[in-house]
């Protein structure tokens, strides 16, 4: 796709929010599946949880939490923009959302390792 008028922070915030939403939506069924193993086969759940100690899987999990955090703060930013009377602080909000999500996910990563 050719670049059409997209080189600005708000558009990046939008696309990040959308992609993270899609990412979460794709991950969610997998997450549900793994948890429901508890019902059918607790051993396999354990196996999975051990498997999740692997560095690569850690990274993937980091990504997921990152997605959730990005999407969460992005969504709050959006609703603040829509429902709170407009302030010119929008770009700051967008930046804050990103920063916040980064902090959380790094925290998660550091604690996990």
């Amino acid at each position, binding site marked *: 796709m050719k670049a059409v008028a997209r080189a600005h922070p708000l558009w990046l915030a939008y696309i990040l929010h959308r992609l993270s939403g899609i990412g979460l939506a794709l991950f*969610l069924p997998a997450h549900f599946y793994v948890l429901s193993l508890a*019902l059918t086969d*607790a051993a396999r759940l354990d196996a999975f949880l051990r498997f999740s100690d692997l560095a690569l899987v850690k990274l993937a999990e980091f990504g997921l939490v990152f997605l959730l955090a990005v999407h969460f703060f992005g969504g709050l930013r959006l609703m603040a923009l829509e429902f709170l009377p407009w302030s010119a602080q929008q770009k700051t909000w967008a930046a804050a959302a990103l920063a916040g999500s980064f902090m959380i996910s790094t925290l*998660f990563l550091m604690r996990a390792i």
Partner: protein
Amino acid sequence: MNEMHLYMAQRLSALVMAPFVLVHLGTMIYAIQGGLTAAEILGRTQGSVFWFLFYGMFVVAVSIHAALGLRVILSEWAGLRGAVLSGVSLAIGLGLFAMGARAVWAVTAGGAP
């Protein structure tokens, strides 16, 4: 369902999820220390009405929210319209709900006295 209802449902489900996400993230960060085991998870959740309601509502909200979010994306990016669009998003919503409900049941109901 007109646009206005869909919009409100999407935003309201997001608002409902906001505290859930925070708690969920917090719990995860806390729980993940020292590795996760099935027993650990189940020990916390099984038989707990609180966690049942917590995750139950979470699942309802996320099913609505994600289905509606994907609905928009499918329409804008994949060109789905009308009945097809509604059908697909309904299926996504119900599918997520079914899987989510099963997972919640798995982690909360199993060990109930």
